């Protein structure tokens, strides 16, 4: 009982102590962080520790630009301790009135999966508790893992193996999750398996989900060979875009590469309902996307033919580049966000939405 009260007090403090006044589109921002590797091998002793980890997760860029953060413990399961912790914070947000006029949820990585779970269940649970649902106008999902990652699939098998020939695979898993997997220490990694993630809280709803997708190569590239298609070192593009199947793809759309080059690409056959890729960045690493990695040119996901047959050609944002090996004819066409090359991807997102 006292633990519950303490927890509730901390959650309230976390929400009310926020002094941020920034917003996206004039609406308050609620952050939902991603996976915290340290929590797998060093389970947090208290929710205060979970909160500190969560704040540190966003400290580089977004913490000062948001009004609230949903904190959760990576050593738990989504349909378990994570749901309990997150819902307590959802209750506080509902009671605080922060989102009465609408707010934006901004997630990263596993936070995208948790966001989907919360959005699906919050109406029913809050109604049971006599509270109003949080009025979410849209989500912005950075490198969302809500379609799972093959690295998590790998971890489940590695947990049952101690074979020298799997040392490369263990190195890849350890690079991402910071721990050698055992059946008992996988926590939310269980929920990130592609089959599991793709059946958790999957139902269409009316909240637009705006997707930001990276294709960088962190961890010296050791994880690349274990993930289907293009990825950002942790999350496959099929997941980050919102593809309805775990097929290997190279881009969110078939007409545009993640470099911005206008060319045919292998893209998801379909996207989840109301999921909209908005920005891609070929060089953006999974974690660097949160604000630590600069110099990643972003490309807007936009099609020239976009409304009722109206053709809008944003030619001023295109440039032509001739490959070194091409002696004649036209060069390749690229489309990029002007100035993005001098920012980190989070800054591009934020500045674009201001």
């Amino acid at each position: 009982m006292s633990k519950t009260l303490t927890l509730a007090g901390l959650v309230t403090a976390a929400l009310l102590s926020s002094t941020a006044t920034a917003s996206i589109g004039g609406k308050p921002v609620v952050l939902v962080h991603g996976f915290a590797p340290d929590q797998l091998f060093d389970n947090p002793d208290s929710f205060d520790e979970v909160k500190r980890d969560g704040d540190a997760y966003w400290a580089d860029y977004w913490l000062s630009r948001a009004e609230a953060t949903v904190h959760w413990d990576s050593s738990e399961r989504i349909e378990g301790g994570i749901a309990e912790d997150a819902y307590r914070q959802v209750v506080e947000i509902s009671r605080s009135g922060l989102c009465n006029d609408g707010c934006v949820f901004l997630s990263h990585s596993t936070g995208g999966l948790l966001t989907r779970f919360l959005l699906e269940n919050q109406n029913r649970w809050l109604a049971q508790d006599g509270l109003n649902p949080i009025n979410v106008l849209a989500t912005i999902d950075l490198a969302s893992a809500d379609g799972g990652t093959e690295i998590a699939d790998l971890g489940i098998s590695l947990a049952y193996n101690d074979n020298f020939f799997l040392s490369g695979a263990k190195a890849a898993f350890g690079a991402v999750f910071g721990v050698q997997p055992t059946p008992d220490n996988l926590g939310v990694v269980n929920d990130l398996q592609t089959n599991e993630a793709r059946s958790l809280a999957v139902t269409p709803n009316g909240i637009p989900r705006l997707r930001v997708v990276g294709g960088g190569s962190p961890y010296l590239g050791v994880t690349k060979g274990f993930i289907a298609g293009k990825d950002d070192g942790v999350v496959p593009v099929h997941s980050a875009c919102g593809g309805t199947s775990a097929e290997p793809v190279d881009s969110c759309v078939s007409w545009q590469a993640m470099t911005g080059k206008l060319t045919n690409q292998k893209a998801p056959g379909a996207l989840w309902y109301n999921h909209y890729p908005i920005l891609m960045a070929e060089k953006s690493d999974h974690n660097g996307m949160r604000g630590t990695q600069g110099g990643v040119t972003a490309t807007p996901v936009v099609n020239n033919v976009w409304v009722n047959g109206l053709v809008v050609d944003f030619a001023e944002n295109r440039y032509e580049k001739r490959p070194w090996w091409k002696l004649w004819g036209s060069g390749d066409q690229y489309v990029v966000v002007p100035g993005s090359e001098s920012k980190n991807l989070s800054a591009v997102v934020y500045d674009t939405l201001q």
Partner: protein
Amino acid sequence: MRKTPLTVLLAITGVFTGVGTAAYFLHDTNDQLWSLAATAAQPSTFQPSTDPAKAAAQEAGTTRPALPDRIESAVFAQVANAYQTTSRHPEYSAPMNQAQMNGYLSNNHNPVTLDVGDTTLALSLNQYRFTEGQTLEALLAKSGPAITPTKLSGTAALITEDTGESVSFSEIEPGAYEGTLSTEGMDPGEYDLRVTVPLDGSPITHVARFHIEPHLMDLLEADRPSVSDNHLVMPVDVDVHQSGDYEIAASLSVDGRAVGMVRETTTLSKGKRTIRLRAHGTLLADYPDMERLTLDQFRIRRLPPRPGDTTEFAYPDGTLNMDAPTGASSLMDEPLKNPQVVQRMEFLQRLQQQ
């Protein structure tokens, strides 16, 4: 060897060509910035509103986004336009193509792969979630040079336990092994199928996750559909074995053409019940001459009563065919009037104007 004049001429030509080509590649002007104005191919069809957000508020689902003047705006104009299309439909009657419905409603198991040196093991199941009593069929495929025996052994155990049901695998063709397991009497829960594969005598364990689900309900038959309040109402009789909050979803086809996903969330107690799946007129207005309705790909979920509880699933076999009711031609394309949708549209259009 003495050089001929022709050889000297070719050499000189080669040098000039090389220098010229190098200069061409190194010259900055090879990256040509295009500077053309945006063009509208069919301007006569486009009536930009002077205040799109306000227009959307007045008439959700019918406004067209204003012509954007920069590429970031174009992204959100595109999103707003796409959202405008889907938000005309209520969430319980969502237009979707077959690929999207497969993503939401199928019970497929994506194969999990494990690379061991130059050999790859791929383990796949006939489905991901099994109602207790169904038969699990597993296929393990080996590709690569490692030598494996003709028989393999496996265990299906709850993820929290070390021991479980034995599963034997036999080679059905070179490098392909098949095993089956009756789930009769197995407790509901989250299981791992762990298959031990001796690769050149060195044992490797490969794991596939699956779920055993309780027997939630039986699908009985469809009653005669009717038209009410611009909805096509399709009553489906079920026999409920476990009380709870349910979501029942299915794909809807009209005369063999998949048109969308219909779903209903309701509280059900044990016994024979009737669920009324509804398709909104906006989804069906294009099919005034419809004759045959088909409900397929049923997905039933007992939703988690409280945070921390788990979702339970059922994927009953069966296709329910119905004759279209006589009033079906009266169904109208009448966009949803929902203040929250209006607010979301306003938000997306505000992003476009940032």
